[in-house]
């Protein structure tokens, strides 16, 4: 099984990553997911994380089949 990772807006450009699946091996938290896809890049200040489309923090536990997203502060409306 795998974890689906999504990035939006400036985060998509920062990591050059729109959507990707990663294996669960070695992944326990949102922070682990970041390290797995960020290629050593630091997480920008104000980065927002979501697990299964609900906001979550970096310590949030991630399970196989989850959808994890990273994005900057929202600017709609």
């Amino acid at each position, binding site marked *: 099984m795998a974890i689906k990772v*999504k990035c*939006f*807006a*400036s985060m998509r450009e920062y990591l050059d990553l729109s959507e990707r699946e990663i294996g669960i091996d070695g992944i326990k938290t949102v922070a682990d997911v970041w390290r797995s896809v960020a290629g050593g890049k630091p997480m920008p200040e104000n980065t927002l994380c*979501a697990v299964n*489309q*609900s906001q979550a923090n970096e310590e949030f536990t991630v399970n196989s089949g989850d959808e994890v*997203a990273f*994005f*900057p*502060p*929202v*600017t*709609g*409306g």
Partner: protein
Amino acid sequence: MASRHNPTKNTRDHTHSVRIITEKLDPWHELTVYQNEHLTKGQFGATATFVGTMRDFNEGDGVTGMTLEHYPGMTEAQLQTIIDEAHEQWTLDDVLVVHRVGPLLPGDPIVLVACWSAHRAAAFDACRHLMEALKSRAPFWKNETLTDQSNRWVEKNTDGYSPDNNSV
């Protein structure tokens, strides 16, 4: 003959209250259609609405275009949550939120928020609260095209209660 006001608080389905669209948004047409379909004449006494429209300027620069990105699925879920919270906090007959995504031009409406209630305080309060909640919690992002053809992400929405802020 309904002589008592009794909106079915917190028990109704609010899924029709959220629409994410890619086509042009005509807020006044949306309101006409929605009110005819979903509101009961004589029940509501107050309708407060807000429309956010794309300007041709921002932070001192000319803006010629904009692309609205969103997180499909999470956007709708967040807006539903925000609307459910509003129904908890105020006695409302109905709420409508329509948000456009994709490419936009100056003068294009971006967002419509509308609240119907028996009395005006609830409609005013809920409409403004919904708009602030949308701007701080719903996953939309604006990318502006400036007059020199460069693009930039809008970095942050500001608080909408301060009279001197620069946001919309």
